[in-house]
């Protein structure tokens, strides 16, 4: 159970320390491993982005940390430490106290995370009073203060309104206020801006950043929007098929990705001002949990896959200032520029193909699918 991802012992100052987390779903057809050996560390005041396609296990990781994993899902291995305390095996009641007070959550759809039958103020006051010993009057004052902080105009009036009277962006602000009203140390934000328009999205991101700066909270930002990550995060973790493939400072991951999957993901994002005929395309789709390939889970879609990738699961290796789980980086100087490395690998591949050009080469570039099968 010793994944080489973490360095040092448990109490090395990290606010959140997830070690070799493994989540399983037992089904009639066998056990599905949804999260396979994920290790993450998050320091106070840091914003960690978690990206990946749908089904990569991003949200599930967040759910496990908040202890909201639903049956039949279960933590089958690994540990989650929060503030020096192990929390993955806490009894429900103790976890409930921790949640809300120490760990706040923001979900994608603000309408479903607010109770439509209670006024916004009642929900805020209830949360505040559950976790602090403020009087009702003080709690109300605090609620109004929170609504002001998240930029809701006329909070004194709006506090007595119901969720349906708020627009989408305003509702998300309320949810943020709700998550931050008792100054949690950690906020798990699961796709907080996905349901919003770009203009409102920018406002919400800015708000989240500012509030975390002021409160000193750490944020785990789960999203599939690389633009949001680039704007917000300090570090990024990229997930694929329930595993971490790359972790590193945001600059490196966005601009000089070291894992072929991250590179494909970055290339598939249309960029303003780039006039390209075709976007970079990763062929195929993410495997189902029941059919995760042997070795590196990405190997069937990877243009650089070798025999080793199909057999052995790659371990994390240092690359740049981050870490990457890819055999390409095995034994390579971590300071190597990824662009150079990938250019070399492609060239070597081409040379090899020319050597044994018995048949026309299969397509290698990440382009041109969808026309013939």
């Amino acid at each position, binding site marked *: 159970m010793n994944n080489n991802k973490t360095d040092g012992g448990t109490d090395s100052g990290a606010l959140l320390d997830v070690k070799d987390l493994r989540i399983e779903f037992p089904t009639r057809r066998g056990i599905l491993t949804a999260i396979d050996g994920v290790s993450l560390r998050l320091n106070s005041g840091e914003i960690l982005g978690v990206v990946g*396609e*749908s089904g990569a296990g991003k949200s599930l990781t967040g759910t496990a940390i908040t202890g909201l994993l639903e049956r039949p899902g279960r933590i089958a291995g690994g540990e989650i430490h929060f503030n020096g305390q192990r929390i993955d095996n806490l009894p429900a009641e103790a976890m409930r106290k921790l949640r809300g007070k120490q760990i706040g959550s923001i979900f994608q759809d603000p309408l479903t995370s607010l109770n439509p039958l209670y006024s916004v103020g009642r929900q805020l006051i209830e949360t505040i009073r559950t976790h602090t010993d403020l009087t009702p009057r003080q709690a109300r004052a605090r609620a109004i203060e929170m609504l002001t902080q998240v930029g809701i105009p006329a909070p004194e009036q709006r506090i007595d309104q119901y969720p349906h009277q708020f*627009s*989408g*962006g*305003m509702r998300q602000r309320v949810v943020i206020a709700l998550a931050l009203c008792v100054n949690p140390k950690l906020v798990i934000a699961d796709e907080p801006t996905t349901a919003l*328009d*770009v*203009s*409102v*999205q*920018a*406002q919400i*991101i*800015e708000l989240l950043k500012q509030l975390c700066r002021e409160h000193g909270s750490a944020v785990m930002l789960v999203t*599939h*929007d*690389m*633009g*949001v990550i*680039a*704007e917000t995060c300090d570090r990024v973790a990229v997930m694929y098929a329930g595993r971490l493939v790359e972790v590193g400072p*945001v*600059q490196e991951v*966005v*601009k000089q990705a070291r894992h072929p999957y991250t590179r*494909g*993901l970055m*290339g*598939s*994002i*249309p*960029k*303003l*001002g*780039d*006039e*390209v*005929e*075709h*976007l*970079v*395309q*990763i*062929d195929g*789709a993410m495997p189902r949990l029941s059919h995760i390939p042997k070795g590196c889970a990405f190997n069937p879609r990877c243009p650089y896959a070798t025999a080793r990738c199909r057999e052995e699961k790659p371990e994390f290796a240092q690359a740049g200032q981050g870490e990457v789980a890819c055999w390409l980086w095995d034994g390579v100087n971590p300071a190597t520029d990824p662009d150079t490395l990938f250019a070399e690998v492609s060239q070597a591949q081409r040379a090899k193909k020319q050597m044994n050009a018995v048949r026309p080469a299969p397509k290698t570039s990440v*382009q*041109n*699918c*969808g*026309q*013939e*099968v």
Partner: protein
Amino acid sequence: MMNAIVAQDSMVAGAEETAAPILRVRGLKRHFDVSPPWLNRVLERRPRQFLRAVDGIDFEIRKGETFGLVGESGCGKSTAARLAVGLYAPSSGSIEFEGVDIGPLSRKQMAPLRSRMQMIFQDPYASFNPRWRVSKIIAEPIRVFGLLKTAAEVDARVAELLTQVGLMPADGDKYPHEFSGGQRQRISIARALASNPDFIVCDEPTSALDVSVQAQILNLMRDLQRQYRLTFLFISHDLAVVFHISDRVGVMYLGAMVEQAPAAELLRNPRHPYTRMLLDAIPDLDMSGRARTPVSGEVPSPISPPSGCTFHPRCPHANARCSVQRPATIVTDGGGQVACHAVEEGRI
């Protein structure tokens, strides 16, 4: 109206075909009656209310071109799209498809045109009958328009369509739930292609997909467009996607077209303050550290839109005139059109 140019049969291949608009929209309006019930109106003296989803827009789409429509939710993009294929009847204004105004056409008169326009929706799953096999879903337009006679011909065509969109002919025997989001969107593209259309309206076709899958679908759409000279009306709230796929882009705000221009021009030189605001709001992938202009406010209700220029409450350049008078559309030097007093007066 002035439709002399398009009166000729544009099916004839030729150089002039490129210039002829396949779709021309003039002063298009669609208002929805959202009045309280009659009794409430009488007893409580409440007035009639109209939601002006689309409030007078003009645009043209040339054959083989992609026209992108962007704007925040509730700005009337989808209503405009549905109007363009005749799913809604316009309240006023005209929609000419190859020179024929489709607004006043009856169902019967519309039928021959229908097969030539198709639509791709955001959520393909919701637009499929879950109890039909994929082959039946794709064959539906062929059957409805009576395009092929024998079952064998239909089967062959369905197999061909499935192959074209990157699926296997054997996938036709499956049900929609057996496919992933991206594959479902491929099926809905295959269905849209089944009747050999010239014009396809794509309403947020990639919004529900992951970026990697989105790239596959966008590449596929572009290939198909080149292959069949399709014309797209492409709607999305994702500006990067719209600018990637479109030749011309129109920006809508509260039912009005505030600016339209060739995509590159609009990106390089956005004129309308709203366009600038939208472009500014896009997260910066290059991490140039550019400070974003904070965007304030949200879209007002289209039931009681602000007076004058509907954007004036959020506009940093608004003055007294903006709150009173609705701006007229003026032509800019970059080949675009913009409706803004500040641009007209040369203030910005």
